[in-house]
């Protein structure tokens, strides 16, 4: 489809362009009817499939295969330590993981980090986006400096956070908690992990929201202020509705991203004191425990969680995937 749409002047032959020209649509459908495809059209369709094939194969190889393979592994007792005792156990691993308190603790920690960090980032990011959008002097400098945290490698940033919060050597630990070791207590450790996440990804949120802000027509804002709308009213009644698709995309991206939190936790606490996220605990069971069955079960459960959240965003909130239209649907 996408191939023929690039052919100029071939509006009648493609569904996509036909949809855009409302009137022509009916005509096209009628003309097409159920008549057999013409020789040329069939060749074109075949070419389309051929051109798509490499991309489709790559997608299957890098996405579908690993997912199916880990699902297959999750149905087995497969522990590298006991190579002779590998066997098919149906959904036993799922029962084991889903009835385990470590898993649910990690799940709770992941959800907490996701919700808190995404909400705070949305507020901060919006503020930052408004500032960057309105900056007139030194626009490039402001935008670049705001992006610095996002540009730093997460592990490197996490290490500097860790040193900052280590008693004795760390300026933050000495300043905020001179008598304790904040990274060794659950509540403060989680707060630090969330803080590190927010620090790192607020610029990303701001960048996406700034793109949304660019969609708001100046005329609309001028008209609103002519009608006597206050600044807050213009923000909530004009800007936010127009920006809605951009906000939802930003939220979706950040939620899925936050759900996979790993590096910050790995460096800051390594999961001690019940600060493991689901990715951490899956890593521990796979890499340290060498238990491919349980580890894959966890990976599949994480995948399902991500899929459900993406489904909720796309279907219920009508978040548009990038590249599609903003009417909420897919083409």
């Amino acid at each position: 489809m996408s191939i023929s749409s690039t052919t100029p002047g071939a509006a009648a032959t493609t569904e996509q362009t036909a949809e855009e020209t409302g009137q022509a649509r009916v005509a096209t459908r009628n003309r097409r009817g159920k008549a057999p495809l013409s020789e040329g059209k069939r060749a074109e369709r075949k070419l389309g499939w051929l051109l798509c094939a490499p991309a489709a194969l790559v997608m299957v190889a890098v996405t579908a295969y690993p997912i199916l393979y880990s699902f297959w592994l999750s149905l087995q007792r497969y522990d590298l330590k006991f190579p002779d005792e590998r066997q098919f156990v149906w959904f036993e691993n799922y029962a084991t993981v889903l009835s385990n308190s470590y898993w649910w603790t990690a799940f709770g920690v992941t959800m907490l980090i996701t919700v808190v960090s995404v909400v705070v980032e949305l507020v901060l990011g919006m503020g930052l986006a408004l500032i960057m959008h309105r900056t007139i002097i030194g626009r490039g400098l402001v935008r670049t400096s705001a992006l610095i945290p996002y540009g730093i490698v997460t592990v490197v940033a996490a290490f500097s956070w860790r040193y900052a919060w280590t008693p004795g050597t760390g300026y933050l630990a000495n300043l905020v908690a001179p008598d304790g070791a904040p990274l060794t207590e659950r509540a403060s450790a989680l707060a630090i992990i969330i803080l590190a996440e927010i620090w790192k990804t607020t610029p990303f949120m701001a960048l996406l929201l700034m793109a949304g802000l660019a969609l708001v027509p100046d005329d609309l804002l001028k008209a609103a202020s002519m009608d006597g709308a206050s600044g807050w009213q213009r923000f909530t009644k004009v800007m936010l509705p127009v920006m809605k698709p951009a906000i939802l995309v930003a939220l979706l991206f950040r939620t899925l991203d936050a759900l996979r939190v790993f590096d910050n936790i790995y460096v800051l606490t390594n999961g001690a004191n019940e600060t493991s996220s689901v990715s951490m605990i899956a890593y521990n069971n796979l890499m340290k425990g060498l238990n491919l069955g349980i580890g894959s079960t966890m990976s599949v459960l994480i995948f399902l969680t991500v899929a459900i959240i993406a489904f909720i965003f796309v279907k219920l909130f009508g978040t548009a995937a990038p590249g599609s239209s903003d009417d909420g649907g897919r083409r």
Partner: protein
Amino acid sequence: MINPDRHPHRRKARTRFLAAGAAIALLAPLTACGSDDEGGVPTLNLYQFPVENMQTVIDNCNQAAAGRYKIVYQVLPRTADDQRVQMVRRLAAGDDSMDILGLDVTWTQEFASADWIKEWTGDDKAEIEKGTLAGPIASATYNDKLYAAPNNTNVQLLWYRKDLVSEPPKTWDEMIDASLKLKQEGKPYQVLTMGAQYEGLVVLFNNLVASAGGNVVSEDGKTAVMDEGTVKALQVMQRFATAGVTSPSFTNQIEDDVRLAFQGGGGAFQLNWPYVYSALQSDAPQLAPNVTWARYPGIDANTPSRVTIGGSNMAVSSYSRHPDLAFDAVKCLRNADNQKILAIKAGQPPTIESVYADPEMAKAYPMRDTILDELKDAAPRPLTPAYQNLSTVVAAQLSPPSAIKPQETATTLKKAIQDAIDSKGVLP
């Protein structure tokens, strides 16, 4: 001179040349690794944690080999988890560039069960077993077969202040009472040992279980036992943690924290590895003369304690391309002479009994008789391939030790350990 900007063609050629150069530079080390000793001396890669003066020992063996092989020291990361993960990842992929593996005593079972290391048989086996202490040999054995050569060993001792305590306590109860008495007198009183949620806590638990005559896992390593001895051990552990004799940061301390706290003068007793001795001489010379050592305290006054064995073994990878040479190299690396070098220069207690009698050991190891005493009836950690998982769940269950409810904790531990053995254990 050519201005490259005005000659796009040349610039392209030059870029390409640079790119090719960079590619070759990047690939060079790989080819160096991959190209197998064709025509030259076979290379044996020794993957081991960092050990001081290890290169001296390797040089000795390379010289003795007289061109039959050349051992190259590939230094692994410093922490045990990182070392294990790196080796396991390579072994799971069948990496044939690893020949000799330096294994923590707790990994031998696991690697043997996974078929990653070769069994020692015949003359090789006899040579390793000759003169080697029984405890270290047990740590290198799986299913009655020898899978590794004990390289060095270790046991914890009781270090105490002889200016405060005249007679070393024989049992934990005596030690706690002595500490409480010092506390009343307003003197340094703390009993310092490792209580953080990690392997060190499991070692403490294992010391107590073995001293109480208990078992965590059955002989064959397939069933969780948790008998009366383990309940007794849990009672002692709980009393120790709640009696008010520990440091406030007990539940957060690992080896070096304990050593530093003791050197700082806060403790009357320290339960720790022998390395604290040399550190004490150099870092706290004013305190050192007041500190001496004794056998680790037991549970019952008439039964000597049994102490967990530490240290490392050397094994030959199943994927090695030169297994015969690797076996030879291991025999050289851990022979009596080389063990002595590492004992004196790197502080590693030897596994060959005769080395302890060497006159040179007297200065480096004044506590060698006590170490040897403990080693002779030392307690291995639960011998099962699932030890790593077992240790993780036990540490999680026992932390913090003050919250232990002996009978209840024993029941939950039994289930957790059985799950770990059955690959059902979920690691936190």
